């Protein structure tokens, strides 16, 4: 079971490793997986006023394929609108990275992480609107 070139590339030269400010109202944070499963992904998005994702960062505890899946996800997220970001499918990630069947679940978790980050962002927006609306 040799690693695909693309997976190795994401590990050796990850582009978006890091942390955004959780308390920033424009940042959505997704945390999925569990240490007991050997896979935890934290994916964060910073959304601009125009509704486009201007920055995305990730950190992952997991195998090479998990790291690559979450890394790829952050690359694809940048520049997309939140609505378009929601359309990213795990199968797209798996195809792009040539993931073997036994590693497909890593791409599924990455899709979960994206949705979780978007969800968190939307919740924050909703409570901000509610706070302003109630003022």
């Amino acid at each position, binding site marked *: 079971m040799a690693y695909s070139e693309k997976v190795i590339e994401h590990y050796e030269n990850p582009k978006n490793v890091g942390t955004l400010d959780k308390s920033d109202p424009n940042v959505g944070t997704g945390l999925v997986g569990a240490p007991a499963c050997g896979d935890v992904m934290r994916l964060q998005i910073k959304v601009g006023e125009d509704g486009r994702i201007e920055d995305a960062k990730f950190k992952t505890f997991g*195998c090479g394929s998990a790291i690559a899946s979450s890394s790829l996800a952050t690359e694809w997220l940048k520049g997309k609108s939140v609505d378009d970001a929601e359309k990213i499918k795990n199968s797209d990630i798996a195809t792009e990275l040539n993931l073997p069947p036994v590693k497909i679940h890593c791409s599924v978790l990455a899709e979960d992480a994206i949705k979780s980050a978007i969800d968190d962002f939307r919740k924050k927006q909703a409570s901000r609107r509610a706070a302003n609306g109630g003022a």
Partner: protein
Amino acid sequence: MPVKLPIYMDYHATTPVDRRVLDTMTPYFTEIFGNAASRSHQFGWRAEEAVEYAREQIAKFIGADRPEEIVFTSGATESDNLALKGVAEYYRDRGNHIITAKTEHKAILDTCKRLEKQGIEVTYLDVDKLGMVSPDDVKRAMTDKTILVSIMLANNEIGAIAPIKEIGKICRERGVVFHTDAVQGLGKTEFNVQDMNVDLASLTSHKIYGPKGIGALYIRRSKPRVRLAAMMDGGGHERGNRSGTLNVTGIVGFGKACEILTHEWRDEMVRIRKQRDRLAQIIQTGLEDVYVNGPWPEPRLPNNLNISFAYVEGEAMIMAIKDVAVSSGSACTSSSLEPSYVLRAMGVDEEVAHSSIRFGLGRFTTDEEIEYVGELVVAKTRKLRDMSPLYEMAKEGIDLKSIQWAAHHE
């Protein structure tokens, strides 16, 4: 002297054939190629002679009384099968209970599962958090239906050396046949079938710098005489214990490998232990939050280092050190996606199992390789920790055990 890549540190999985072994084997492929069972000509006689010589070398190494107590098989998996199934069948009028442990090799566990389907009762003993089996637990589990105890001499994942002598004594007192899978311990720790009251022992060649595809089962012939039903029928080779044309070249190699060990194993282990300890030292001084799995420093195989790197997953580590061959207890490295059952039986946290790496050193490991790998592991762990959300959270003082994780369920 620069290191040559790739570096092999997975000697528990297999070993390269020692040149001396290979040279001893070579004539038996093309010159002395006879079937050892051919009684009527010198091609057969010369092959038989070589087989008997190897039998003696192996018997001598393990302290067996007589060479005929060594029965050749295709490897330790077959020897394990033969020991368990053979005893269960032969002694079925005496009883139907077998005692073993949860940390045994699959060749034992899967064979036990099959025997359970055939009406044999099996007790799988627990181990403590260091992976050790307790002789008292063995004694307590015995009933008047117990016909066999099987406990491995040393564990392949964490290197824990079992109290074989004590267990052997208990079995002898109770008249229960005692089998040990000696694969990992042979040539790395003391092993003598007389001293330890061992009745059956599975041995293999490819973990001791011999060729793959050949092993043996030691079957005690006196004090007491142990009998078993054969698994392989057809020709009655090996005194009816295992039919099939003998793998002469393999046997010759196996014998030579044992002979080399007879003279060299103690010095070799002194050297390898130093290397193993140095590797552990480099890793433990360069990193925090690393944990050795299994007993430390004793009773443990001198060449084994099984260590968990908190906040970093095992397969990612293996990819990071891709020019170094090691293995991991992580689920991601097993085709069944289950983490190491040995670590789980020890009560090791699943997360710790996922972060574990096993280094197995051997005859050809060099000091330069130790320095290189130690530094590489430290550097790559740091890099992977920078990418790990768990490391960041731990550094912030968050108790990871208190978080409600939202794992994806298939």
